[in-house]
């Protein structure tokens, strides 16, 4: 009962702030609503007893990436951008796209409706899910893991090179 209540509370916050994020004209406000949506999603992870996913979501998205976003947004002068209209007027195209996408999603849900009945959650998934994640990353998925880390390193060096003042 309490769990269900928490779930709907967090979901309502996540969906509501996601909508608000898309519709705000001031981009700083949009960023704040994005943080709220990410934190609410993290709360849902926590409720599903995946503490590791929860804290990674908080650490990486809300704490790391969003801080970078906010830095950029607040350092740039966005006053002119804020005054522009957020949505343009090509309503026909937008409506068509929305209809097609909505139909696709509805069809997919309809076809796969049997798989929506998920099995009940086990009482105790794994007491050591941090260790399990580490084990999987460094044994089973070592090659993708290393490739991703090289990719991140390259982007880091690339950013440093681009930020450097040219002689």
């Amino acid at each position, binding site marked *: 009962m309490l769990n269900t209540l928490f779930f709907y509370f967090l979901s309502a916050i996540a969906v509501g702030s996601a909508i608000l994020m898309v519709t705000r004209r001031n981009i700083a406000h949009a960023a*704040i609503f994005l943080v709220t949506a990410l934190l609410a999603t993290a709360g849902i992870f926590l409720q599903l007893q995946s503490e*590791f996913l929860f*804290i990674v979501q908080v650490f990486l998205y809300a704490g790391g990436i969003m*801080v970078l976003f906010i830095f950029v947004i607040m350092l740039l002068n966005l006053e002119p951008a804020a005054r522009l209209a957020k949505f343009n007027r090509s309503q026909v195209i937008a409506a068509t796209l929305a209809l097609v996408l909505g139909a696709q999603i509805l069809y997919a849900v309809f076809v796969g409706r049997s798989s929506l009945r998920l099995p009940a959650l086990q009482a105790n998934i794994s007491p050591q899910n*941090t260790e399990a994640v580490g084990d999987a990353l460094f044994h089973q998925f070592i090659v993708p893991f290393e490739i991703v880390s090289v990719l991140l390193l390259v982007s880091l060096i690339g950013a440093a090179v681009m930020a450097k003042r040219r*002689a």
Partner: protein
Amino acid sequence: MQTYVLPAIYAVIVILALPLLAGCVLIAERQFRAYLQGRGNSEAVKPGLWEPITEVTKLLMAEDVRPSGTNPLVFWAAPVVSLLVVLLAFSVMPIGPAFHLADPNIGLFFVFGIGSLAVHGVVLGGWASNAQNSMTSALGAAAQLIVYGAVTILGVLSALLLSSSLSLKEIAQAQLERGQWFIFYVPVGFAAYFLGSLRITTLTSLDSASPGNESDMAFISAYRGFRRCLYLLAGYINVILVACIATTVFLGGWLRPLAGYRDRFPGTSVELLDVLPAMVMMGAGIYFFWRARRLTVNIRRTGGFLVAGLCVVAAALLLGVLFTSEGFMQGVHGAFWFVLKACAYIYFVFWFRFEFLPAHRDMLSRLEWRMLIPVALVNLITAAVAILTSQDTGWPMRLTTLLATAATLGVAWWLFKNPPDELAALKAGGE
């Protein structure tokens, strides 16, 4: 439903106690700084115990002003975020083996993950104030928070290699099983944590009307009254938080010194070293009594005698719990050692800050990027090598970690002797 009741009571206790403890930290900071600078403490308030009350009253009397053209919701939320983050981090902190709210298996990760949200409180506060000075100061403070947060995490990681668990309870327990506190295995990691945590707990003095534009805390200059109180409270509670983390991870948590030594008094179940807390408090009581006798100001002398009496009462209580049940005794004594270590850490933080660090921000950034991060990374690698070597060859871990520390210090010395040549870059016309 029953499972929620006890944690809820603990949570209320923690939330009520932390502001009071923050007041104690404030008194300690004031008195200690006055002592180190060779001057008397504030003349206006005597005795110093009233200082937090008068200061906070003064702050609360100020008119609550919101600058024009600001968003009320963001302006309101920013200080709340700052305070909420430090309070949330305390929810996984085990104060003694018996007293903790929650013990998730991501304990330490939780503390740092929630702590990473503190940047939002700073940046949003600066942005919501709608002033250039606040904004630039907030961005600077946020940058410092991020980079010095990285150093603290790198320092703590080397200790995590030894505990092989993120749960704060298990980290403390691992130090009993390994036979030594982790500070003795990875002293360089502790040093990195200490230096990093000095910067993430930058405090301003409460009494300055508006922090100068060089101050790290200029981003709160638009905040008055209760909102300012929230920011300053968050700062002081943050000091307690980093002390608690250091105590748990490096200083053995609630374990007493020589926790592995378990000789008992003949004929009883009381261990020899369990009388230590009572003796420590007794010694403190005698010291305060001796100090108070020589004080001349009447009210101070009375206060001194009062403190001495409280110490004696505490000593009697600590002795008394020896004869109660085992679990209760462990809980009380664990909490005693934990608080003692955390206090010692806070003392060292203040000592170090007042003694060494009136440095400018760019100097600190240079120290951070040129020294602390490379050394912390090297320390992580050497510690991992030392632990694996000890596991594979059966050499005692004390020896291997000692060698690893020596190697790390060698690298640090080399970095210190060969700093990157900025002058050459200047002459070449780079920057």
